[in-house]
């Protein structure tokens, strides 16, 4: 099995705050990796460094063995890394289909001045994805009017338009009511397609979700990795129970 | 010459003239078909920087004159009612807003308001822009004020006329005045606005000086931007380079600001200042105007206008209406309207009393000449389309008794002395040393 993503001694400080300290990690094709940790532990910083939004102070990030550390988000996206956002970054004033068309257009390598954005292939591809994410019924709705959960799904669907090899989900179920969380994850997993081609890295707080959907858990605490293993093992370690799930009181 | 001087002289003459006019108008009435009107579009600055000094005085002048015409109260030979019996209807348009707007407004005047003639335009740019349009539309256009010689030296027109001399006259006359009064000039500074008017004036003056004062060297050459308002820096520059004479073609608000700022700093004591177009600020500035400044009016206008029945009548007409005496702008307006009146009436005499069309008007005005309050206007240049006229230069003195600035040492320059002969460009004429200049004092 070869590593899709590798982090080598990645360090990042914001002033005195250590957001990442000697992060070393290999992510393998088809894995469903969950990043856990209390707020400010460095999960999102790590995601932002992978997508190139933040540059590490030290260390490298490799995609399929190529160093992507110096690249801009756009370049990294074109190399096959897509992400969704904790607060969905969707176009509230456009309808659902149009959002997908935007994603489509952005993904398009050879942009055209005259080719209509609404040409048939584009719409078909969009509809296919919408269908996989059970969004077809909302197809023509203005996104601003849609509930948060739907917007999160759309956000992810847009990210998937480029059929990336690595997908980063930033708290996919945050802001979703408890009873909706599981159906939500089900749809997402369904949306990802059964073939394990897409490697998924998702930041998550809900341990039930983690243990149900993650094939591997990476736990962060103040910028360091304090556990990296199968969910049942990782969640059982003392550090995780102390600093992440808070089952053990930190003395 | 001052207002008081005028008043005494005029009473009797007014009585006569009115009597004459009444009689004349009676005859006139019969000859012309009832209630026909002659529409004139009058364009000048009603807003913006040129409004106070040029536009509004000119329009004011036009208003009183048109009334006088319609009443038939102007002295002979201008005593026919209106234009040859036709009532004059004037439409006033603001020249502010740039040449593009002017072209559109003039088209509207001709096509929409159906005016028979347009009289207007102070800005050289506006004149350059509208002239070809009137030509293309085959409509009658009189440019009454703008200074640039380019219009008739670069272009050929059938329907476009300018009833005032172009700006070269002003600076040639200035330099000649200095020479005639043999003021010694080893060096001269200049301050002119950084646009066509200023740049042209500066060139004309420099070239003329090269001829009349071969030894004199040009020093500071300041070009503040139009409407700068603040001249402290320029004044320092002018003061730090000592010069016998300081020339400026500033006008309006800029000129007033310059004077107000330069006077306390003693510029006027250090150097002989000469203004090529400064007369129009005298009534306003009053005692704020330093003495001994040599200035022109772009013609024999205002305080330098020649004594004549016509001038006295006009002077009273204007100063009674607006209790300030007329300066250059209204003079140029009145001379254009007088010329237009005669042209119309001449054309009507030729075509049997009908309202003349553009061709007939043009034919009547071309190469014609007439008396204006500022002396004789002769359409001598540009194939009979560009006027030349006499001009005068004087020296300021604040007369505390009259509570006004008066001009002393007024020297008159006949048209042929300060204007190039026909078919010769101004620049060449000056550089060639004024060939054919006649009657210079």
């Amino acid at each position, binding site marked *: 099995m070869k590593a899709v993503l590798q982090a080598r001694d990645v360090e990042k400080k914001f002033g005195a705050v250590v957001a990442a300290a000697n992060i070393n990690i290999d992510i393998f094709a088809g894995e469903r990796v969950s990043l856990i940790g209390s707020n400010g532990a460095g999960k999102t910083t790590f995601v932002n460094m992978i997508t190139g939004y933040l540059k590490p102070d030290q260390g490298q990030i490799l995609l399929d063995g190529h160093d992507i550390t110096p690249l801009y988000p756009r370049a990294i996206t074109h190399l096959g890394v897509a992400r969704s956002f904790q607060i969905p970054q969707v176009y509230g004033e456009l*309808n659902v289909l149009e959002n997908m068309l*935007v994603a489509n257009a952005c993904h398009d390598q050879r942009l*055209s001045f005259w080719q209509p954005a609404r040409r048939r292939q584009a719409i078909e591809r969009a509809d296919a994805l919408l269908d996989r994410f059970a969004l077809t019924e909302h197809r023509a709705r203005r996104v601003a009017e849609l509930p948060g959960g739907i917007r999160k799904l759309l956000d992810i669907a847009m990210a998937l338009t480029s059929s990336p090899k690595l997908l980063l989900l930033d708290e996919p179920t945050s802001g979703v009511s408890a009873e909706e969380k599981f159906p939500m994850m089900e749809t997402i997993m369904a949306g990802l397609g059964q073939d394990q081609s897409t490697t998924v890295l998702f930041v998550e707080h809900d341990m039930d979700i983690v243990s149900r959907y993650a094939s591997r858990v990476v736990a962060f605490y103040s910028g360091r990795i304090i556990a990296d293993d199968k969910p049942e093992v990782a969640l059982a370690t003392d550090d995780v129970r102390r600093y992440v799930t808070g089952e053990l009181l930190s003395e | 010459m001052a207002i008081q001087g005028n008043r005494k002289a005029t009473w009797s003459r007014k009585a006569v003239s009115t009597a004459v006019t009444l009689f004349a108008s009676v005859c006139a009435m019969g000859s012309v078909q009832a209630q026909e009107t002659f529409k004139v579009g009058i364009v000048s600055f009603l807003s913006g920087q040129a409004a106070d000094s040029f536009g509004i005085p000119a329009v004011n002048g036009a208003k009183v004159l048109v009334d006088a015409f319609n009443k038939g109260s102007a002295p002979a030979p201008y005593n026919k009612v209106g234009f040859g019996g036709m009532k004059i209807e004037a439409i006033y348009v603001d020249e502010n807003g740039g040449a593009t707007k002017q072209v559109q407004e003039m088209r509207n005047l001709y096509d929409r308001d159906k005016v028979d003639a347009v009289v207007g335009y102070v800005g050289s740019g506006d004149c350059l822009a509208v002239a070809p349009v009137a030509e293309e539309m085959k409509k009658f256009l009189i440019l009454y004020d703008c200074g640039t010689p380019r219009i008739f030296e670069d272009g050929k027109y059938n329907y476009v006329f300018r009833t005032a001399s172009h700006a070269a006259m002003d600076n040639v006359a200035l330099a000649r005045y200095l020479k005639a009064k043999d003021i010694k000039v080893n060096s001269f500074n200049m301050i002119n606005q950084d646009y066509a008017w200023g740049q042209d004036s500066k060139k004309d003056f420099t070239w003329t000086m090269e001829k009349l004062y071969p030894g004199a060297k040009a020093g500071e050459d300041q070009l503040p931007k139009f409407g700068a308002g603040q001249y402290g820096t320029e004044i320092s520059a002018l003061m730090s380079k000592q010069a016998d004479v300081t020339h400026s073609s500033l006008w309006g608000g800029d000129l007033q600001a310059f004077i107000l700022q330069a006077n306390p700093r003693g510029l006027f004591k250090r150097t002989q200042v000469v203004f090529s177009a400064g007369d129009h600020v005298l009534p306003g500035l009053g005692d704020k105007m330093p003495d001994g400044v040599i200035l022109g009016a772009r013609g024999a206008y205002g305080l330098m206008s020649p004594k004549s029945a016509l001038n006295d009548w006009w002077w009273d007409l204007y100063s009674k209406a607006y209790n300030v005496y007329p300066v250059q702008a209204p003079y140029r307006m009145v001379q254009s309207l007088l010329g237009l009146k005669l042209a119309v009436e001449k054309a009507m005499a030729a075509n049997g009393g009908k309202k003349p069309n553009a061709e007939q008007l043009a034919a009547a005005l071309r190469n014609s000449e007439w008396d204006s309050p500022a002396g004789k206007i002769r359409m001598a240049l540009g194939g009979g389309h560009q006027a030349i006229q006499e001009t005068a230069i004087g020296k300021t003195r604040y007369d505390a008794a009259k509570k006004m600035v008066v001009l002393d040492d007024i020297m008159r320059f006949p048209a042929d002395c300060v204007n190039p002969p026909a078919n010769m460009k101004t620049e060449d004429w000056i550089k060639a040393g004024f060939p054919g200049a006649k009657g210079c004092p």
Partner: protein
Amino acid sequence: MANQLGTTVSSIATPVRYTVMWALGICIALSLAGMVMPKWLTFLITMAAANGLVSLGIMVLMRGGVVPFGQGMVFAIGGYAAALLSNKLGIKDALLLTLCGGVIAALIAAPFAPLLSRYRGIFFAMLTLALSMVTYGLLMKLEVLGGSDGFNMGRPTLFGQKLPDESVGYIMYVLTISVSTLMALLARIYFDSTRGLITVAAKENELRVEYLGGSVRQAMAINFILAAFCGGLGGSLAVMALGHIEPNFSFWTTSGEFVFVAILAGWQSVIALFVASTVLEVVRSFSSSYFPNTWQMSLGIFLLIVIRFLPRGIGSLWVKGGGK
């Protein structure tokens, strides 16, 4: 005004051939109407259309969320280019001159495009303003270009034909509205294209566009060049209709009016742009002939009323507004 985007993209639905037919219809109708119109009106519309082209360029940029306050610069460049080519190099053909005006404006604008693509909001507006004012200063200076007075341009020809006094106005009118119609069409197609869509998206959320793999700066740069092209066309057409050009073409008030037209039109409809431009000309011309002393005031009041009560522009009158 993000809440127009919805309709902007929805209106893509109308297939191109309908748009083309519409455009041709309008163009022909106007040309016919021109025969019976009074001359002042044809001229007014000619100028309105020429100015409209400049505002069309502004619209291209506004869809990306930036508004240039110095489009007078490209307007002037196009104008001077056409006038000089005709006076100095003897290129007389109106159509060719129009094209040259556009191309040259685009070429001169191109070097600035990468720089400007970094700017947003008021800074973009101000930098374009500054550039146009520098251009203005230069034009005032260059006496070969007639300095502040500018200079007159000889009458153009069309397809080798001289244009007689009687019909020159009408021919320029037809030429101008034809060019405008063509550009309006192309603009519509561009707006509906994939690039056009990215521009619209960049306006609401640049970051997301980047994360989806689209380049916002490239889009902005291209839009700026296209806008310059439109402005150049407008400038060259205007100068041919006027027969005169002067630095004022690049003055900030000129640019301001172009922006106003674009705002007045709103972003949905390209037609609205030319309607707006015409409305402005009409208001200006009538107010200055009926209130010679207060035309500026009446124009100002008109602007205020429009901005207040038609916040989404004239276009919103017939394009159904999306959103609240």
